[in-house]
């Protein structure tokens, strides 16, 4: 198994052993496989891309091809201990409703996303007046799947407005953690652990 992406490694390290997890937008199943193999988790996934789903099934994972915007409603309330949405929130049509669904299905939810207020992004907009193309946001505005760019501050506001509890928050600059205070500027990635 290749090394996990840093945000996934944070999630994997903070899932209680033996938990039930649902990874929404699970890609080719790296996190699920890690949770299964290192945390003895009962895993399931949802993924939009059929090639990725086939890859997951070939890895022995249980993954349903589906869309976070429309297909989460089929999971019963409290079906899992953790619902995970990594690097997918910003691609959904209604991130707020997806967040509701995550905390309906899971007792807790991990949400990770690229921070659109990272200083490189700010600089690109301020200096060049152009939508940024960076290491973490490598695709031009017209073809990026990221249709709802979000910043750490935006996300904190949404969480507060919904009255959700932040049980944990991790901010990544490259693969190193950075402080919560500086996160708005310095974090490329944010990982939140939420509950109701």
């Amino acid at each position, binding site marked *: 198994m290749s090394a996990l992406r840093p945000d996934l490694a944070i999630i994997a390290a903070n899932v209680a052993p033996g938990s039930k997890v649902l990874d929404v937008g699970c890609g080719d199943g790296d996190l699920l496989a890690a949770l299964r193999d290192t945390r003895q988790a009962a895993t399931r996934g949802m993924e939009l891309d059929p090639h990725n789903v*086939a890859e997951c*099934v070939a890895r022995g*994972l249980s*993954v349903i091809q589906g869309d976070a915007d429309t297909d989460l409603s*089929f999971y019963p309330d409290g079906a899992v201990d953790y619902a995970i949405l990594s690097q997918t929130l910003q691609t959904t049509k209604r991130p707020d409703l997806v967040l509701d669904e995550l905390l309906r299905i899971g007792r807790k939810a991990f949400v990770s996303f690229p921070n659109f207020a990272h200083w490189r992004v700010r600089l690109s907009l301020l200096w060049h007046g152009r939508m940024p193309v960076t290491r973490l946001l490598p695709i031009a505005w017209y073809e990026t799947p990221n249709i709802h760019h979000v910043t750490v501050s935006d996300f904190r506001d949404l969480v507060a407005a919904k009255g959700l509890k932040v049980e944990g928050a991790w901010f990544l600059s490259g693969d190193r953690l950075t402080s919560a205070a500086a996160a708005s500027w310095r974090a490329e990635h944010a990982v939140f652990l939420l509950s109701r």
Partner: protein
Amino acid sequence: MSQAAITTASRVLELAQPLPLDGGQQLGGVRIAYETYGTLNADKSNAILICHALTGDQCVASPHPVTGKPGWWLRMVGRGKPIDTDRFFVVCANVLGGCYGSTGPASLAADGQPYAMRFPVITIRDMVRAQVAVLDALGIEQLHAVVGGSMGGMQALSLAANWPERARAVLVIASTARHSAQNIAFHEVGRQAIMADPKWQDGNYGTSKGPENGLAVARMAAHITYLSEEGMHEKFGRKLQDREAKTFGFDADFQVESYLRHQGLSFTDRFDANSYLYITRAMDYFDLAEEHGGRLADAFAGTKARFCLVSFDTDWLYPTAESRTIAHALSAVGAPVSFVELSAPFGHDSFLLDVPALDRVIAGFLQ
């Protein structure tokens, strides 16, 4: 088909007890023809039951009893194949109602005459009851997996719902939990074509030629539903058959006509018309939710099996939505379930053809 039933070299299980049917009858003297591949291990834990489709047979990976063509899933079943017979003991039985050695309408009733239309109407669950009898006879308490495409998938689902302890994994390809109005409609066209053929004689064609024309038309109509519009266009387009120009007549001017006529005619050499009536009826009656109080999820309550559902994007007979419905029902009861729609140009028939992604999914799921 001129004889009562097709003779095969398959092993035959004769059920000692009458088989109880959903229709209320008890069917005595039931024989089930089956093939096996590979070796059953000491604790009998490596068995895979493959359930065949409407016009399939038990010869998954051995020559067809009539045509001599290679087994219908040879690309999937064998040494080193996705369903690896070096690891697994593969069982496939001809369905109840079939015409390849299992008891069906062409079999002889107690009076020495073929049952014909006296054969009881059977269901998918009745077919599975017969499959379970084969497993019992082989001493297989729990399957490593039950696998089926199309009608075979319906049997796999029925086994999972009604005999939940009998399979640890359930793989359902290009199938559905219930026949739709459109599915029933196409089958009805086929049945009416058979019954409208004067040679059908209310089913009592005995050992004569039988309703060949009707059965051929039934097969032609059904065959269209197994292909995709795109695949048909690619294969045939508007190309003419062995001619430079249209004949202004009703010969098979177009290649697609010639192809369908050939498919229809050759089918009559290998299938019994009454079997076709009974098996299509069983499929039409299939509605797994209805059997379980109207809620599909309830059909799977308490299941401990893993499930995998596969659909194909060009399959309009059992479209992706049908598999998705099953996946959602399984999710609702917390069953470990995978579902994937694969892209393939061959329509419903994709599950039998060269789709490498399907090989990977099947091999991975069965690990």
